């Protein structure tokens, strides 16, 4: 593959690293993720492109039926796009890779174009309901032009998944 992996990668990993003003850095030197006085992903957190100029996404429900076809800009993440268009995708931790509620299933040919998830995303995917081989966390996937036409399907859930306590693991 000849795509500029690093550059795309940097895009895919851009997380809200906003911090509460005045707080010291984490002692480990690593930038901490958003404390909860930060961005709420709602309408208006991204801008919609001029119709016909954006990157197309087909949001599909758990059965595979199209919910909405939307257009978005390069760099927008799937969770923010979903919220902008009233798609029922949760983002309980608001993009901090701490909840797995933004789990989506991507079309295989597009999934392969996205840099592989890092450890922390994989750790959360371990706990996602209805995990597939092309599952990602919506908050971690940022759009590039090559993703035009991608399917974004919401996972299916069944009562058994949580009632029998098999998944996710006990706390």
């Amino acid at each position, binding site marked *: 593959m000849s795509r500029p992996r690093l550059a795309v990668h940097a895009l895919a990993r851009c997380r809200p690293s906003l911090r*509460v*003003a*005045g*707080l*010291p850095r*984490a*002692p*480990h030197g690593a930038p*901490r*993720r*958003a*404390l*909860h*006085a*930060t961005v*709420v992903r709602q309408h208006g957190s991204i801008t919609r492109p001029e119709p016909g100029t954006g990157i197309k996404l087909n949001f599909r*429900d*758990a*059965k595979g039926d199209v919910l909405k076809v939307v257009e978005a800009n390069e760099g927008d993440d799937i969770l923010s796009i979903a919220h902008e268009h009233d798609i*029922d995708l*949760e983002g*309980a*931790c*608001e993009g*901090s*890779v*701490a*909840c*797995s*509620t933004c789990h989506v299933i991507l079309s295989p040919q597009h999934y392969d174009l996205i840099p592989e998830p890092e*450890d*922390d995303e*994989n*750790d*959360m*995917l*371990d*706990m*996602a*309901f209805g*995990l597939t081989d092309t599952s990602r966390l919506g908050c971690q996937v940022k759009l590039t032009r090559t993703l035009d036409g991608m399917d974004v399907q*919401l996972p*299916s*859930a*069944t*009562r058994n*998944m*949580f*009632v029998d*306590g098999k*998944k*996710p*693991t*006990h*706390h």
Partner: protein
Amino acid sequence: MPPLKLAVVGGGPSAFYVASRLLSLLPHHQPRGADLKIHIYDRLWAPHGLVRYGVAPDHPEVKNVTHKFDQAAADDRFRFFGNVQVGPQSSHIIPHALSLPLDALSQHYTHILFATGCTIPTLHDVLPPSDRIQSALSLVHWYTQHPSHSNPPPLDTISHVTLIGQGNVSLDVARMLLSGSSALEQYDVPEVVLDVMRRSSVRHVSIVGRRGPHQAAFTTKELREMMNLKDASLLPIDPAVLEPPPDAKLSRQQSRILQLLQKGSVNAPRSTPKSWSLDFFRSPAAFSQLPSGKLRISLAHTALDLHERAISTGETSALETDLVVTALGHHADPAQAFYDPALRHLRTLSGRIINPLGRAVKNVYASGWAAMGARGVLASTLLDAYAVADTIIADHFPGATGATTSIAPTAPPAVSEERLTAENVVLNSIPAAVEQGLEDGRVVGYEQWKAVDAEEVKRGAEKGKERERMGWEEARTFLARPV
């Protein structure tokens, strides 16, 4: 449309997710939403259950869920009443909560939802609580300053701690003990807690489980955090234990956990001031107290039978430790209505409360840990809550469509004769005792909580930390201040 006036007992994430779902599926301007009221009661003065009084302070991202709860609370069909204990409770009394009998709700509500969680720690048969044996929940209550007032652990006089149980709560406690106060100062850790942590002499944490790495209940993320601790290292694990059985079909999570265990901690074993160990296939069989005050625990060695149950091999070994912390899960309060002793939580079918004869109690529901037992992270609590909200709507507006969850409500079971709720209610009424409590400043509304919340964040910012928590007395004084 008949009104849907719902009392929710318990104000944790499950309650708020059900409320949020009902409020958004039955919007104000639609006829079905016009006569909707949701009143949440919690025995604690502050809302959000384990998100405030459970989630570890160094997981601030997890607490972002409260923004969604705030949005639900902003709807004028929603009210919160903190500091109201509904129905009987066994021993774990919150001293300052107003006690309200369950039937005091009956005449005011058409529906009741129990979202009371699993508030009681499961104890270990041979390790009864004492000053040297505590439940993980009491430690969690201490570091979150839960209104039940747990005593601080004697961290300044001990060096070796043994955790019994290998779930995420166990790892939360281990992380809190091994992180060091300087790593925690920036978070929502109360000053009184930091004071104890600064004086801590804990050097080693042993995490004991009766089964192996494939049965451990912790998740990859929490294990990785342990591996990355700055001042601590994992003592080597017997490689034989980390060998998957030849015919084992491991789940994705199991194999990733195994890889992580094989790699070990970022810091080489014993290269750090503190250490921890994962002791698999060990089960406490007896203990004695040594003259020094230390405990000597006799650990039975175990192996798995065909059903993955731990059985003793007959071998034992001894472990000397200063403090034992049992992290064996939680169960619902047996004093509660509809508690099933066999299940250790409330008896439900798809979210509907079921009486001992298997019949549904009309318009009475349960959700969250109260209904499922104490398992599952917030993501599963959310899914369950949405499914229960959809069931409430399907029962109340039969034939109506619109709920969009992929978990369709099951057909309603046979209904019993008993009634806990009323059909004709005054939409805005609340029990007189609660009304009085509001006037006296004993019962806390959501706006008042938001005022405390803002003040806590402000006080925290002055110290360069996420927030500085108030206890009830402080909050009460703050709320009574002249403005």
